[in-house]
């Protein structure tokens, strides 16, 4: 017996209908999820960890939408941020406790920032990284920061210039004061450096920064240099000046950085950097001494001349350039000294450079790398050129007074 085609078609159609008509019975709408914009991790007593998240609430409040235009205005974009936190024995535990308190599902897919409290960083956050990297919905491009004080305090900060703290941080990372450090980079450094040495940007919260007289700036995050990690723990930090030196060494200095050199007492010259290149050349000489040659070449445009030096006179121009070269060299040497002698942490990537050129010697020195590292002498040479004087040829200071 054969079944007629039309019955088959009917059967297929009804099966398809059964499958499709269920539709979106288990749909998850935007207002069913809690979109995490940033996460803060703090150390708590008894070795517990506190996870605080900044959640973006996409659906506007019912009251507000009823109020119409005015409601939207007064609510502003900031009204949709919620900060919530929970304490647990590990990140995963804290997250599950946090989830229990929220009626919406936590959604990590849009998280851009992890902020660690200083205490947590000093204890070491490898355990937390394991969670972030293992937990599939978190992305490797997420930036990491360490804050002086508690991470949860940064969560509530709503800067005036950006929609929320997390956006402010990511935008700031792109400027010349700081760098992006994301999960991928940290993971890479942990695996490749002999002693798990890396840096993470260090930020200040409004609570630390606010001064009564400058309340306008209270709600803005600031960068306070870099923190240094070694063997999974934060062991110290570099202030902005030392960070600058670190940037010079590692070729991370960004164009548009403004440099100011003192010519004499109360006399300064300022230059806007347009291009810069730092090159590190590792060398092991015949006596077995490890050396590093640092060549910095940069150029910039004059943006302010508050001195008696005359840019248009070639000799004086060279003198100004020499001043900048000496300043950069001093900056670099100071940073080198702190990084090598005080922290003994190879955050400069020397290990990688020596490994590339002298794999055998490197392999021998690897087990005691910090001993080798602090003995590496760095010879710095700086070449600075001022290309253009800007719109003024002569400076106002030199106009003879009647």
């Amino acid at each position, binding site marked *: 017996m054969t079944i007629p085609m039309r019955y088959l078609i009917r059967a297929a159609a009804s099966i398809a209908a059964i499958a499709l008509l269920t539709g979106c019975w288990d749909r998850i709408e935007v207002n069913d999820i809690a979109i995490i914009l940033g996460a803060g991790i703090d150390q708590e007593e008894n070795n517990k960890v506190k996870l605080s998240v900044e959640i973006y609430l996409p659906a506007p409040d019912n009251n507000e939408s009823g109020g119409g235009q005015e409601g939207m205005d007064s609510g502003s974009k900031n009204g949709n941020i919620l900060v919530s936190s929970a304490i647990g024995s590990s990140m995963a535990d804290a997250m599950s406790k946090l989830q229990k308190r929220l009626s919406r599902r936590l959604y990590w897919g849009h998280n851009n920032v992890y902020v660690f409290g200083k205490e947590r960083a000093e204890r070491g956050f490898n355990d937390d990284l394991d969670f972030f*990297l293992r937990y*599939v919905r978190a*992305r*490797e*491009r997420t930036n990491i920061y360490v804050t002086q004080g508690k991470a949860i305090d940064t969560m509530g900060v709503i800067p005036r210039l950006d929609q929320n703290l997390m956006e402010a941080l990511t935008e700031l990372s792109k400027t010349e004061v700081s760098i992006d450090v994301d999960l*991928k980079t940290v*993971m890479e450094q942990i695996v*490749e450096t002999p002693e798990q040495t890396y840096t993470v940007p260090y930020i200040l919260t409004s609570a630390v920064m606010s001064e009564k007289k400058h309340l306008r700036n209270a709600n803005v995050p600031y960068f306070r240099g870099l923190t240094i990690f070694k063997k999974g723990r934060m062991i110290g930090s570099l202030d902005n000046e030392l960070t600058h030196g670190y940037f010079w060494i590692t070729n991370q200095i960004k164009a548009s950085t403004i440099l100011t050199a003192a010519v004499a007492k109360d006399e300064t010259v300022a230059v806007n950097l347009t291009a810069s290149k730092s090159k590190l050349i590792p060398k092991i000489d015949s006596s077995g001494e490890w050396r590093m040659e640092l060549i910095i070449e940069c150029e910039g445009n004059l943006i302010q001349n508050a001195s008696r030096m005359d840019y248009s006179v070639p000799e004086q121009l060279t003198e100004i350039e020499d001043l900048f070269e000496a300043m950069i060299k001093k900056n670099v040497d100071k940073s080198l000294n702190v990084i090598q002698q005080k922290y003994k942490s190879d955050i400069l990537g020397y290990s*990688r450079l020596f490994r590339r050129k002298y794999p055998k010697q490197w*392999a021998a020195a690897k087990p005691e790398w910090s001993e080798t590292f602090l003995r590496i002498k760095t010879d710095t040479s700086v070449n600075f050129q001022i290309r253009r004087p800007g719109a003024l040829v002569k400076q106002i200071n030199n106009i003879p007074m009647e």
Partner: protein
Amino acid sequence: MLNGKISSFQLAIIMFQFVLSSTVLLMPSITTRLSEKDMWLTPLIGMAVGYLVVWLAYQLFKLSPEGSVVRLMESLFGTYLGKAVSILFIAFQFHIVSISIRDYAEFIESNFFLKTPIVVIIGTMLILCGWAVRRGFEVIARTGQIFVPIITLFTLLILVLLIPELNPHHLLPLLERGPAPVLQGSLVVDGWFSQLLLAVYILPLVRDKNNIKKWGFWCVTGITFVMVASNLAVFMLVGESAGYYTYPVLMAARYIAYAEFFEHLEAIVMMVWVLGEYIKISVYYYAITRGISDTFRLQKPEAIVMPVGLLLLFVCFWVGPDFQTVSTFIANIGTSYILIGFVVFPMLLCGLALLRNWFKGLGTSAK
């Protein structure tokens, strides 16, 4: 019907994807663990085994009576022992393909469909492949012809989009610990290349037999190119930490971000993996069905397609209790296991057949 004719170009395209489907996702991590900085060299060495296996498959096909490798076994070992050897070989393929399917399902399960029962993921794929196999190899070949360009294009697209993030310095120094780790890593790659031997079941369907060698060569070359490209991209992106990620290519795709809106490309990886895995499973499925029907001289081979699928579904659960057991097996014993099955065993067959022919030749010339 298990027949239907294909061209050798179609065969090459199918075998190209057949090897690459699971490689691109799994290989960078495993080879990094074994060969560290030189992991990108491993496919270049493994390629030799690829050429060898393609040559072996072609030789076996030429030596086989009526082009059926099962008949060759029967004529070499005697009818009953030959059938037993053939069944053993099929059982081996069963094992390998279920590991493959399990790998696929675990990937989908752990990255995308977190709540779907794994049996649904495996089951739907097997129903699809079973349907394709029932319709004959021509269907698989034609779907391959449509899918493979899409898959390859998107794989390369991901690699190209990664270019700004790549750091070539990760690759230096070359051969840091000598050539030994590279060779060790290339053995794992050989494991993938050796599966090309399955072509022996498909070769009888090829219409233009004189082009087989040419396309076989290009097939292996193409596979090597994509392998090296993906290995290079992954390593230049994350360096030695590639060994710590389960699916580095997925991670790499997730890492792509342009202008703050062109992001979250991991869905492409999933699409590539599903389409590629469809081809891989179909080819295995076809080879197994054909092997069984040849062994028992079945009149209607399509009758056993669905039962074989059901058995495959069970074997997928029998291969290991969890993901870690399966992947430990792949990274350790799995390599020698698959090489014995797909390289040593066929070489033995080929050698025996050649020897026999030589003796026969001696006999006839003596008369």
